[in-house]
Structure formats: C-alpha cells, structure tokens
C-alpha cells in the first residue's frame, strides 16, 4: 500500500493526522473532516478551533470531587439541594454522567480518575484516594462527620472490584458506612436465559427480603 496522504500539503497532512488520532476516526473519515473544514466558512472552522482551546484552557478537575468542570467547585458540589452526606465513588467522569442520567441519585460524587490496575503499574498513589479520605475526615458545623455513606460505584470488573476492596480497607478507619453497587439480574430478566456470570453474581450478592 502506498502513502494515501501523498500529494497533500504539509498543513493539510498535519490536520488529517490529528483528526485520525481521535477515537473511532480512521484515515478515510479524517480526510473527509479536513475537506469539510477546507470548504466551510472561516467563522465555522475557527469556532471549532476556539471551542477546543476553551475546553483545554477552562475545563479542569473540581478540587473537591475531581469531576470535570469549568467552575471550581463543580455544579454538583456547589448544589446545596443535593445530599452531601452520601458520596458516590466512580472511576471516571463518564460514569458520573451515566449515573446522573438515571435521575435516581441525589448525593454527591468522588471521581477516582482511574482504577487500581497492578498489572498496568497503576497503584493507589495514581488515584484520588487520599483526597477522598481527607474529604471524609471533614466535620460539619455541628462537629459531626460530613459524610454518612460512601457508595463504591467502580466497575464490576476484576480491577474495579479490586479497587472497591482496596477503598473498603482504607475507609474502615473513617467509620463511614460503605456500600457497593448491587449486581446480578436486571429487572425483567429471565433466569432461564441469563448468563452464568450474572446468575452467580446474583447469588453471591443476594439481599434479605
């Protein structure tokens, strides 16, 4: 195969290369995007450039929960109508968005910025664990612990489960109630057709009625 980008100017080639690095964008799509930019008005094209710059310059991690935000603290941490006594711990901001979309949760969050992955060399020091512990040591104006419950909402993968176990061991000293997202059969599922892993989870994590 020859170089499909041969014949393009250096600048055009550079932009194709950059688009091509975006997730889910192949060489063909990158080429189409660049042609779209070349055809569009200067305002439209530069609006894209400005939006990228603004995001990179102004979006950062909330100092309290490490969610992505333009305002620090973020809107969730600043919201007095939410229950600040319950902290839901997630691996990444993407997971927070999913939980928010359910509309079923009204507490606050803590974003770990990753998960424990010993085989990839990712340890607790690479996550926001210390900041979470610091948060849990805080007292409210009556001298009571600021948080009553921590919900561990890391992924139910081996590493997500390991992360939850690690957090559980670290949180023991704080005396806060630690819970884990339930797992097992979703509502409407039929045991006859459910997969073995899900069924065995449902048995392991069964709840009292």
């Amino acid at each position, binding site marked *: 195969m020859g170089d499909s980008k041969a014949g393009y100017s250096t600048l055009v080639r550079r932009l194709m290369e950059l688009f091509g690095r975006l*997730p*889910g964008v192949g060489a063909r799509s990158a080429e189409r995007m660049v042609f779209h930019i070349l055809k569009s008005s200067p305002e439209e094209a530069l609006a894209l450039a400005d939006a990228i710059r603004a995001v990179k310059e102004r979006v950062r991690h909330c100092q309290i929960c490490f969610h992505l935000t333009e305002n620090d603290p973020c809107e969730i941490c600043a919201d007095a109508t939410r229950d600040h006594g319950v902290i839901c711990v997630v691996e990444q901001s993407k997971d927070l968005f999913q939980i928010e979309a359910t509309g079923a949760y009204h507490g606050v969050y803590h974003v770990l910025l990753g998960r424990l992955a*010993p*085989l*990839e*060399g990712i*340890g607790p020091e690479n996550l926001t664990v210390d900041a979470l512990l610091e948060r849990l040591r805080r007292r409210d104006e009556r001298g009571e612990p600021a948080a009553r419950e921590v919900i561990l909402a890391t992924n*139910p*993968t*081996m*590493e997500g*489960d*390991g992360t939850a*176990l*690690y957090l*559980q*061991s670290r949180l023991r000293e704080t005396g806060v109630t630690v819970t884990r997202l339930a797992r097992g059969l979703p509502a409407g599922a039929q045991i006859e057709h459910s*997969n*073995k*892993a899900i069924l*065995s*989870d449902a048995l*392991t994590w069964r709840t009292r009625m």
Partner: protein
Amino acid sequence: MANYQTDEALCLRVIDFSETSQVVTLLTRRHGLMGLLAKGSRKASKRRAGPIGGPLDLLCRGEAIFLPAREDAGLGTLTAWDVRDHHPQLRTQLRAFYAGQMVCEFTSLLLSPLDPHPELYDQLVAALELLAGAQGPRAVVAYMKCALTEAGYQPRLAGCQECQAAARPGRPMRFVAAAGGLWCADCPADKRAVQVDGGVILALARLPTPMRLRAQPPSREANSRALLTAARLLMGYARFIAEKPLKTYSLAAAVFDK
C-alpha cells in the same frame, strides 16, 4: 478454510483497544499464551449478544474460539468467548485480588507466546480456586515454583551447588538467580546472591503443586513469613530470567500478611 481453534482459556490481560473492541492476552490450555483482538466485545449487550458475550475481564476462565496469530508477536482474532468462571472469590477479598494479580503477571512474564503448557494451565486454574481460602498464600508460592519449572527454570533447592551441603533450618543459604541454585555460607558465591535461611528453602522444596494442595490441603497452618521470603526469592529469580521488574512485587507484603 481459516484455521479456527477451540480451547479453554484464562484471560491474563485486557486492554480497551477502541470504543468497541479489546485486545486480550489469553492463556489457552492447548495453544499457549496469545494476543487476540476481540472485535465488538465492548459493545456486546444482552439484547444483541454476539458470539463474544460481552467485555472480557481479567482472570476470567472461558471457552474460546479464535484464529491464532501467524507469528509469535502478532495478534490473532477472538471470534467467540463463553465465560465459565469469573472468579467471584477474587473479587470479595483484597488479599485474594492481589494474589490473583501476582500469579497472572508471573505467568505472562515467564511464558513465550504460542508455547503450550496444559499442565501449567491446570495448575493456574487450581491456584486461582485456592487464593481466597486458607491455602491461598501457599498456592501463590506453589504456583510460582510450578511456573518456573514449566518454563524450564526449575530452582535447584536440594543443597549447595558447590559442596552439596543440604539446606536445614538455621543454616544460612544463598540463592543465586544467575545459576538458579543455592550456595552455602562457606562456599564462594555470586555477589548478587540473596541470603535466605535453610528452613525457608526446605519448606519451598517440599511445597506441593497447587493441584496437590487442592486435593490434599495440609492441615498445619502456613508460615506466612517463610512464604513471603520464598515468594520474594522466586520473584527475584523471575525478574532475572525475564530481565524485567515485576509490577506486582510490592503486593506480596499484603498477600502474605498474617
């Protein structure tokens, strides 16, 4: 016709490759270690469950259908995956989780791609079953010894390589990774030798395989300190063989903590 293979396998590494796919390292029972692209595995939902039932997870055991890579370093294709055991016991105890990570890294560090080791595969399955129980710490060290032996690096623990003096409790010995064997305190040995008590060597030499541990669990309590020393010795040896530090080395203290 493409050369599709069916085999039982353990998943030793998972990397999210794209929004929809994963690259996994499987230890297959009869075909050895191999890298495979699991196309669409991240997108598989219960509604349109494809032949790959969902994302693959670390240390899951399952039935795989795959097209092996043409050469050692290449990627093959995983076409179907049916999970048989996702090892809930490693997900409910931190020590067991760490131990699982240790045996996982030990395996991928020592084995070469496409080199089958069905015996070691069976030993790993047995070790994983034991990790959360009373035999867990023993199973880790027992498995490490098995893996080294299967990879062709059986540690020689019978006695001093120089004067044949046997290891016994209280007699200081030295393990030389470059030679894979022991030296006593009286014989000149490599400067990088690791000091270890003869009692630890004796215990290590007598440690049965994980499959034997599973079939006939010893009733006496394991000596955690001796096991930790033995594990560190074997990890140091593996590090020398693979010329690569073990990322899970620091987890040993928590695994063998009393």
